[in-house]
């Protein structure tokens, strides 16, 4: 995706909110940087660059360090995500019951790689290493709703439903 397109999709960053997260929720404590970033991401569904610049200045941590953390941990994203997030569990129990094939199937159907977002910004496909619901594997989570014992057929239905909205 061209960079310019991503940039213009970015929402306005509300610095009062970022400030509240940094100072009120975490007392400006540098050690809580990961949790501050999580709070920012919870709000915007990704880490907007201006917010990270602000964070860097507010807690006096170089932007490179913030970038290092943002790219080291799998849960952080520097690019905006889709409206609907589809998590496919690829933990061992789910893998043995075919979750790898499901990831490939969805990736093919949506035309994106795992971690990617569709051009219409409707879907982001993500894999997760274990949700602890191994008894009902394979598990797929669409927008925080669990779908136990998922099948390729069910995924087709879910995606078609969202697309029909």
């Amino acid at each position, binding site marked *: 995706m061209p960079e310019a397109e991503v940039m213009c999709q970015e929402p306005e960053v509300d610095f009062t909110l970022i400030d509240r997260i940094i100072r009120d929720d975490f007392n400006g404590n540098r050690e809580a940087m990961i949790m501050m970033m999580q709070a920012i991401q919870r709000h915007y569904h990704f880490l907007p660059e201006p917010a990270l610049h602000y964070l860097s200045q507010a807690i006096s941590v170089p932007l490179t360090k913030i970038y290092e953390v943002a790219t080291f*941990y799998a849960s952080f994203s520097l690019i905006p995500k889709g409206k609907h997030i589809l998590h496919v569990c690829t933990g061992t129990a789910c*893998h043995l019951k075919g979750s790898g094939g499901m990831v490939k199937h969805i990736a093919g159907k949506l035309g994106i790689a795992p971690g990617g977002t569709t051009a219409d910004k409707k879907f982001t496909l993500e894999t997760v290493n274990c949700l602890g619901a191994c008894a009902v594997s394979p598990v797929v989570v669409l927008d925080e709703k669990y779908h136990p014992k998922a099948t390729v057929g069910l995924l087709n239905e879910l995606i078609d439903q969202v697309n029909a909205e």
Partner: protein
Amino acid sequence: MNTATSAAAVLSGVKRFVGGQELEQHRQALIDRTDPNAPRILVCCGTGCKAVGSLDLLETMQNSVAASGAAIKVMPEVKRTGCHGFCSRGPLLTLQPEGLFYQRVKPEDAEEIVKQTVIGGELVKRLLYKPQGAKESIAKVGDIPFFAKQTKLVLKRVGRIDPFDINDSLVHGAYKALNKVLNEMSPDQVIEEIKNSKLRGRGGAGFPTGLKWESCSRQPGRHYVICNGDEGDPGAFMDASVMEGDPHAVLEGMAIAAYAMGSDRGFLYVRMEYPLAVQTLTRAIRQAEELGLIGDNILGTGFKFKVSVSTGAGAFVCGESSALMSSLEGKVGRPRPKYIRSTEKGFRDSPSNLNNVETYANVPEIILRGGAWYTGYGTERSAGTKVFSLTGNVHNVGLVEVPMGTSLREIVYGIGGGIPNKKELKAVQTGGPSGGCIPIPKKFLDINVGFGKLAEIGSMMGSGGMIVMDENICMVEVSRYFINFLVEESCGQCTPCREGLTRMKDILTRLTLGEGREGDVELLEEIGKFTNSFSLCGLGTSAANPVLSTIKYFREEYDAHIRDKKCPAGVCKPLYYYEIDPEKCTGCGLCRAKCPAKAVAGEKKKPHTIDQELCIKCMECYKNCKFDSIKIM
């Protein structure tokens, strides 16, 4: 109504306990108001049951009970609890005091349960558990082999108490041990008791807990007590269930550790994929602080211990102790060399004691009953019990707590109920991604599970994930899966781990695509041994275990991939195809209906065929065929 309201009433009168006696008086008052024989409906709301809709069940159950109020003699308390353990049968519901067990309960069953069982005293037969192959259903929890064969020390309260209500934990004995250590024991006596118990770390390495506490306590400076709840092994959910089902056991264990080591600050590092655990622990800390059981001046003794929850951000390597501490400091989680131990210089360069969730949860009971009592469970070298999460191709998927030294046979067949669909047991994988696959039928079904034994045969105890694999699991593909996982999760600072894993992944991927060459296995072994020898942390030094153990025990499967270009288990897609046996196919059309790729064709009541061009090998037809007519070729 009973406990729920009365407990709230009692709580409203309590501010902070300023002494141990007050705590015990409060506990006694709660117990006096709690009739152990009062009717209770326990709804399992662990992650497994939640995934299949137990929160809806809880709500409809509460509504159904309220709606039938007039007809019920003694109103039952509908209680939300943590994991009952029998996850494959969820949503689960237990009716006390009789101990009736209903499984796979749907919200629409709630009304019938209230009418028939609560009011009428009759069983709802279709909701009872029936073991595989048995004719009779079993009504009571205590008679179900899955539960009856377990020994619950760590999980004794999990699934029985409401994890969101501290008073319920107090009724069941929480903070009794903390009261005891603060008023009757010196820090050294606490350490001595833990040493006597021979408790070893439950996170995988198995280091003696008492020794760790002792060496940390001897260090000068501010001490930190850290709990590792970053349960990263895929397929393992023991720690999640403890944090979600009995948070106060973990907090109490940490507080006792803090007292023993002279610490005033603790951290719980929990993985972000466990939102329920974070929520439960956060609430538990607040409730314990309100009562003066955590925080400043605990029980009026002047002992101070503040705890907070930190969440991980999705990095497996942060389960490694030094990486975890680095992550707690808000940095990237890269392990550091251990020539200086964390007990000397860990978090904030200060003496830090890090234990696993299950280790801390064991502590209160050891304090109350004594170390000698604890060594009565388990084996000489591995004392106590261990919680396993039993998953994969086994009938009874769930949480299993057994004494150390229990045989794999007992766990997989006795408790697990054996392998579904008349398949053969092929292997058991323990120890997470850096563990090993144990070939079961041939040699090791009667091996006793403990720290030493598993290491001897090339696997490890790990944190307690136990994944059962049947004949349809390809060992080459499984090792590709684990190596791929570790490639993603390696922090990248040691070249052997970073590059060795990537090379191994390339080779294994080639094998699963049918592009294997002679000499690949030898090359894998060479790289694997090198990776294990020259990496820094626990992740790197055990990273090649899945490859090495599968080569050791399943060499013939590697050879089949390389020489015959066949995947005997029917997993590696280019190396097999499905075919319908016309002799066995009845033309029922089920596979045609289930096929998402529309690759199955055929007229009703006539043998069907699969179009190999269209087939995506998703296994739907194979799994669904009732006549065993679909063959892996």
